[in-house]
């Protein structure tokens, strides 16, 4: 466990105009290591700046772990990686009380687990048992861990970045809906383009290894998170976000046909929160101080794709949640004047 506490540093006063500049610096630095994948980097960074968590899904070898590592390198804060396996126990994550000798006496002392870090990489999270997976729930939602009726707060920023592999489903435990709902975004890691692959080859097969330097501290990330929450949003944009979320429910009148036919449950209110929070950060990253409807539409896919549960017919016919969300975005048209 790397013990570098951001609270030791003085809290900087960040002006909104500097938000985009600072975020772009992080993206730029991450981009030195991660070739291409700009959307992936943007969405992951959005999850971090939203003070929430991100689930990455992609086949092995696409750089998921590398991305998280790079972000940890760029941000001067504590980073831990947990490799989830079927025999991983909750105590292996949260920590446990161990018996130690102190002054000739044996006492129980809490030994923090790897969850006590600013950036936590939960690698292949679906390989652990649901019991172990659920040990993350309290940490992700309340930023605290309870062990033996004792609560241990987690330091800010606290960012869990989980990965999962969609191919090797044998012996895996799909995340329960409650767990999934804790993630702000579910980001699909796409296969890189040929140009990006060439660049990856050049960077990774030579003698010179490209490394990212620190451009931001944890305190600055916390300040950016505070700033992001302060972005005002106009009522008509909030109404649009709510309409999009409502359309994910098959029993809602605004739901398109694809939702009515193939969706069992739609997104929870956390989905709308994710839309608005993500929209705020997108607005700041775009140099604006207000959330637009385009921001809401831009974050709709990563915000809602893991919150929509398809029914049997949908799964049987290979309907993807992405297709459902696109149909929702087509159906829920932004209000326009003549």
């Amino acid at each position, binding site marked *: 466990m790397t013990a570098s506490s951001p609270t030791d540093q003085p809290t900087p006063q960040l002006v909104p105009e500097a938000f985009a500049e600072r975020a772009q610096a992080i993206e730029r630095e991450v981009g030195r290591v991660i070739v291409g994948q700009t959307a992936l980097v943007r969405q992951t960074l959005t999850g971090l700046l939203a003070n929430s968590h991100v689930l990455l899904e992609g086949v092995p070898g696409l750089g998921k772990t590398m991305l998280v590592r790079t972000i940890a390198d760029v941000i001067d804060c504590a980073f831990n990686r947990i490799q989830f396996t079927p025999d991983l126990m909750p105590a292996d994550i949260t920590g446990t009380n161990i018996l130690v000798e102190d002054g000739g006496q044996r006492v129980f002392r809490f030994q923090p687990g790897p969850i006590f870090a600013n950036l936590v990489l939960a690698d292949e999270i679906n390989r652990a048992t649901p019991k172990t997976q659920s040990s993350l729930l309290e940490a992700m939602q309340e930023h605290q861990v309870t062990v033996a009726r004792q609560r241990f707060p987690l330091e800010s920023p606290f960012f869990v970045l989980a990965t999962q592999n969609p191919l090797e489903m044998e012996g895996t435990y799909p995340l329960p809906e409650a767990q999934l709902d804790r993630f702000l975004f579910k980001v699909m890691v796409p296969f890189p383009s040929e140009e990006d692959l060439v660049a990856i080859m050049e960077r990774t097969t030579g003698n010179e290894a490209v490394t990212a330097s620190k451009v931001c501290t944890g305190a600055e990330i916390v300040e950016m998170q505070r700033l992001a929450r302060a972005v005002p949003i106009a009522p008509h944009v909030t109404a649009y976000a709510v309409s999009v979320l409502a359309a994910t429910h098959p029993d809602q009148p605004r739901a398109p046909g694809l939702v009515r036919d193939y969706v069992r449950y739609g997104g929870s209110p956390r989905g709308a929160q994710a839309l608005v929070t993500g929209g705020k950060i997108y607005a700041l990253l775009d140099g604006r*101080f207000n959330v*637009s409807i385009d921001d809401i539409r831009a974050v709709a896919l990563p915000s809602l794709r893991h919150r929509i549960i398809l029914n049997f017919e949908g799964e049987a016919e290979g309907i993807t949640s992405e297709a459902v969300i696109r149909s929702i975005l087509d159906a829920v048209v932004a*209000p326009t004047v003549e």
Partner: protein
Amino acid sequence: MRKIDLARKPARPRQPGPIPLSIPPDPVGRLAAPLDPALLQLRGALLPHRRRLWLRRLVRRTWLALALVAMAELGLWTLARLAPIASAPLIAAILPVGGLAGWMIAAVRARPALGEAALALDGEGRLGDRASSALELAVEFPESAGPGPDPADPGAGSAAGEATEADRFIRRQRRDALTAVRTAPAGLFAPRVSRRPAAATLVAALLLAPVLLVPNPQDAVIAQQQQVREAAERQAERIDQVAQDLEARGQDVNDPPTKLAQELRDLALRLREHPDQLDANLARLGAVEDEVRAQTDPANEQRASSLISLSRSLSQAATGTPDANRDGDPKTTRADLQQLADNLDNLTAEQQRDLAQQLAGLEATASQADGASGTARRDAAPSRAQGDTAGARSAIDRLGQSLTGAQQRISTGRDLAGAASRLQDARRDLADAGQSTAGQAQAQGQGQSPGASGQVRVRVRVRVRVRVRVRVRARGKVRVRVRVRVRARGKVRARGKVPSAVAAPMPGRSATASAATAVRPGRPTPTGPRSSVPTCPRSTRRSTGSASPAIRPTWPGPAATARPSRATRRVPAPATGR
């Protein structure tokens, strides 16, 4: 066990429309002054965009109004080709006026609010909802809508907290929105052609052109209806005149002329109220005419002749002068009789005998003239012969009174006959109005295009047979002349021979009897467009009344026979155009 249809899906609810538009309010109308100068500048920067947006809306509504008017005109004129719409030109003139009025109302209603302009600018200028958010946030956070803290004040920025952060964000956002609005492209909201309304206008105009240019067969029908209405109005006036005449002659409300006058007024009223119900009006007119004819005494004229003869003879007998009362006026006769009654005592016995003989000789005439006159005469003659002076005087007085009464009855009968004759004329004119235009409409519908000028050449073959039996009992030389008049408008050319046409007289009236042909073969007559052989009442009314009272015509009227005349009639085509 209930079977569940798994394939059946529940009915889908109706898809709702787009998200209700939430128009950002204008902060000036919602918030109290003073306002943030940046907010006021933002309002000012939005105003030109608002004007341009209004102009674009006006153009769009113009196209819509044009399309609506064009389609309405097309629908109207298409409908006018299927059914006669007399008011189609009026409606066609009203439609553009209505479209203009609707456009003006729509133009006023289309004036965009400031929030609408902001939304439109955000959408079209891709401003990322900056302008609309600035307006909404100003109203949503009124504490941030006022003038901001002085940037030079060092203590202004020191206040920490969520509210201050939000205030800073809102003011930043407002300035950002102002910059974005000011740098928005100037060519936004350019008026453009609304494709669908323009296409609808074009299609409607293209379809309207042939609809308007190709002659409308319904024009003839409308002209016919108009003619029928005008004819009905004319006949109503004529009937009113008849009623007025009858009312003037009626003595009390139970008098037949008075009753008839009331009935005729009802008929005229009906004609005015329902001028287009040709068949019903004709039937009603015919019924009234029949009723009047039923009240008419066919022997009225015969009685009139007899009364004249009796009056003349009585005057001659009373005065002893052969030339006395040559006109046969009953009033003169009454005066003569009164004088005779007064002088009865002065008459010699021989004079009294002669008088009695003369009165006895008038029996036949008195019977024909009037029953009461005959009775009075019968009473007077024996009294005179028996020397009963008082009885004779009384009988002579009654004779005079009965002559006056007979004259009144004859006059009433004549009035009724005249009324019946005028009703018949009215009915025929009304029927002619319907038939002539129907013929025109048929001619137009079959061949001639109604818009073409020229004349319609219609061959009419008339075959009329008139059989007249005239029994003439007259003294002296009687000249009988028969005259046939063909009344027509336009040029009428008759071919073939018109044999001796006969106009049948009414009973008691004189008959014309010369075989002169009014329509000479091959020569056109210069009168109007209707070609008809006159029927009994008209011809008798126009006939010369020179026959003596002894003429006794037969009744009922003429069994018409007229040998065929093939006439070629030229009827002017109705005026075309709308």
